[in-house]
Each structure stands twice: as structure tokens, then as C-alpha cells.
């Protein structure tokens, strides 16, 4: 039984990742602030394969106790940590608010880094060659008006992932980023149609990024079929140019 810790499980691409992983036999340990009806329904359909813990990732210092000791102790052998939870921050730089910036960095960067610390500790304890996957964003590689702060948080993850791969490779632990293009989820719902169309015009496929292709790429990376892939940024972005 392969156990996966997935943050941001209850909505958007997190829900689709949960469905894909369960269909492939994984057990999903989900974390979100709130339990959505969709996730609850999935739990009812697969009661032994889908678990849930309500946790607010802005509580960086509670991660060891709440996420690991009380939810995924060392006796639960962790196969992968998928860092999917994130909050958006859409504004131009001259309006930057430090409190909002700090809160976003707690959720998007500080907590994920702290979770990686304990995920690696679990993997060392179990002598398990596990996987770490960060959901990054095309905004790191292609600038967009209003996304500088958000992109900065995702760029931090890409740098951390590259160095995680280097540091822990000799213990078999792999770290990769999925660089997702713009997806039709709640996170992008605040963008107007005009803005969305401009974004999609910058892609080769002229379409939003398909959630299933993101989820299935993640499943491929953590399956035994991609053992030599680590330290990479894998773009799943409708060919953004």
C-alpha cells in the first residue's frame, strides 16, 4: 500500500489528483482547511483509501505535531508528498501588502518546506525512496501582470526542489516540480474573461491546462515508471510560449 500526503485535496486539481491516485491503488492522506462535499463523497466511496485532516497551512509551527505525529507518524510509510495547496495573490506590485505577502509565503512556501523536512524524516526512518512533488506555476517562467508576488512564492519552491533532489538523491529521494499552466479552478475564478483569453492566447494549444493531464503526470512521476526523473521542472501548460 503506497501512502501519499496531498495538500489542498478538497478542491480544484487536488480533487482530480485524489481521484487519479485512488484509481491507481494509492492511499491518499488529504489535508485542506475545509472538507468539501466532493471530497466527502469520494471518502464515502473509498473509505479505506481516502483520509482527511482539516489543517490551516498558515500554522507553520504545528506541522510536526498535527500533520505528522497525529496524522502520518513514522509507522505510516510515506511514498510521496504532493504539495498542491496554495493561495493566490493577484495585485500589482505597487499595491503589495506585507501582511498578505507574509500569509501567502507561509502557506505556499514555509509550510511546504517544513512538511518536506518531516516527509524526508519519515522516508529515512522507513528507508523508503520516496517522492516530493511541488505544484509550481507557469507564472514563474512567463511573466503576467499582477502575479509577481504569487510567482515569487512558486519560484522559491522550484529552487528548493532542485536542491532537495541534489541533497537527498543519494538516499533515493526524488523531488520534482510540475509547472502547471492556467487551469479552470476556483483559484483563477477571480480573473476576468478578458484576462483569461489573453492568457490562453499565449499557449500553443489556445486552451486552459487540463486538470487530468496534471494529475496523471504526477501519478507517472511517483509510479515506478519514472525512477530516473529528479530535480526537474515538468511543464504541463498547453505549451505556453
Amino acid at each position: 500500500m503506497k501512502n501519499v500526503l496531498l495538500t489542498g485535496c478538497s478542491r480544484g486539481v487536488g480533487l482530480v489528483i485524489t481521484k487519479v491516485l485512488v484509481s491507481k491503488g494509492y492511499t491518499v492522506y488529504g489535508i485542506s482547511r475545509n472538507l468539501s462535499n466532493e471530497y466527502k463523497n469520494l471518502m464515502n466511496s473509498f473509505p479505506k483509501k481516502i483520509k482527511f485532516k482539516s489543517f490551516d497551512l498558515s500554522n507553520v509551527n504545528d506541522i510536526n505535531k498535527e500533520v505528522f505525529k497525529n496524522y502520518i507518524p513514522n509507522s505510516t510509510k510515506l511514498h510521496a508528498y504532493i504539495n498542491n495547496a496554495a493561495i493566490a495573490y493577484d495585485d500589482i506590485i505597487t499595491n503589495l501588502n506585507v501582511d498578505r505577502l507574509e500569509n501567502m509565503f507561509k502557506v505556499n512556501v514555509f509550510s511546504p518546506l517544513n512538511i518536506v523536512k518531516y516527509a524526508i524524516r519519515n522516508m529515512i526512518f522507513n528507508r523508503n525512496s520516496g517522492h516530493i512533488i511541488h505544484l509550481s506555476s507557469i507564472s514563474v517562467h512567463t511573466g503576467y501582470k499582477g502575479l509577481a508576488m504569487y510567482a515569487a512564492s512558486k519560484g522559491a519552491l522550484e529552487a528548493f526542489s532542485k536542491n532537495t533532489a541534489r541533497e537527498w538523491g543519494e538516499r533515493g529521494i526524488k523531488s520534482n516540480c510540475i509547472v502547471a499552466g492556467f487551469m479552470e479552478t476556483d483559484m483563477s475564478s477571480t480573473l476576468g474573461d478578458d484576462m483569461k483569453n489573453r492568457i490562453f492566447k499565449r499557449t500553443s494549444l489556445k486552451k486552459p491546462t487540463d486538470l487530468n493531464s496534471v494529475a496523471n503526470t504526477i501519478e507517472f512521476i511517483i509510479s515506478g515508471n519514472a525512477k530516473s526523473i529528479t530535480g526537474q521542472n515538468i511543464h504541463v501548460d498547453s505549451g505556453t510560449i
Partner: protein
Amino acid sequence: MNNKDKLLTIINEVLEGTQREKMSKIKDEYNLRLDIGFDSFDLAELTVRIEEVFDIDIFEDGIVETIEQILIKINEK
């Protein structure tokens, strides 16, 4: 089993994990790197295994270099 014997068992688990010879005893003055031959990855694994048994993170507030320093942290808890 006293704490020192438990610590020896944990150290041997780390050594076994990388197919190294087990130790029959440890002395208080042994340096983890120089006398036991641990590198930073071994020390990370040692930390995790000690935490699992004693519920204490020995590296949380500074560097630990000898067996005696670990035992002091465990006994202080």
C-alpha cells in the same frame, strides 16, 4: 535496557542500514563522526530514530558531537 544500551541499538540500526559493521559497545567520549564514522545523512537518520524512541529532536537547538551529549539530552527530557 538503559538509555545507553537503547542508543547503541539505534546506532547499530543506522550502521546496518548501510551494511557497516555493528558496534559491540559505545563510550561516552566517542565522537559521532570521528569514532563512529557517521556522515550528515547518518546523523539525520540517527536523529529520526532517536526521536521515535525518546520523543526528542537532538539537533533542534545546536550541534551534538558525542555520545555523552546525546545521553545528556535524553536524560534531561
